């Protein structure tokens, strides 16, 4: 199941809540303001790393990263465009955390 997160983790607990419910192997995709979570060097790096370590692939929507001027992202995080988002939805059922 693909989990999408659209909130900045600095202001809102959606990401930390979602992580508690995440099953091993399930991918996480950050979209909209959610993409701030994967900016390199911020304090969510450890949480991102722990998610990756549990075999949960982590993605961020590239157009949303670009819109926010984020070029350096945490190690192991992959980017997708809207077409890649569609591919992930084709591969997985979806759980959009709002």
């Amino acid at each position, binding site marked *: *199941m693909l989990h999408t997160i659209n909130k900045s983790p600095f202001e809102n*607990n959606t990401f930390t*809540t979602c992580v*508690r*419910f*995440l*099953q091993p192997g*399930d991918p996480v995709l950050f979209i909209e303001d959610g993409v701030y979570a994967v900016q390199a060097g911020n304090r969510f790096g450890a949480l991102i790393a722990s998610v990756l370590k549990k075999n949960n692939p982590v993605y961020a929507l590239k157009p949303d990263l670009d819109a926010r001027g984020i070029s350096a992202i945490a190690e192991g995080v992959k980017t997708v465009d809207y077409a890649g988002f569609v591919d992930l939805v084709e591969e997985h*059922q*979806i*759980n*959009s*955390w*709002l």
Partner: protein
Amino acid sequence: MSEEQDIKKIMHVMRRAPHGSIYTYEGLEMILIMAAYEQDLSVAFIGDGVYALKKDQDTAGIGIKGFSKTFMALDGYDVEKLYVDKQSLEERGLTEDDLVVDVEVMDASEIGRLMNEQDVVIHH
């Protein structure tokens, strides 16, 4: 056989406190309609969503119609799978006795496993 295949597992996830926004209330309206379609419905209460079930809500003072008692009606619509996240409840200093309906209090990992089996998950 083919009829059974048509039954979808749909989970509604209540995540917001009541009254500050309409999401929980309109989410409940959605659940009540979906209940008539004989799908496999469940409702999970996570984070501030657990506050929706708090006893003794009296909304007269804010001039908004209360709806906590509507959760009690879910049983009559055969919506019986009500899951509450244990940690969310405990963090808020609440226990099962504080809630208006009988629920299953579960660990996040357990609710996460059930989420994973769903065809559709809708957050409110």
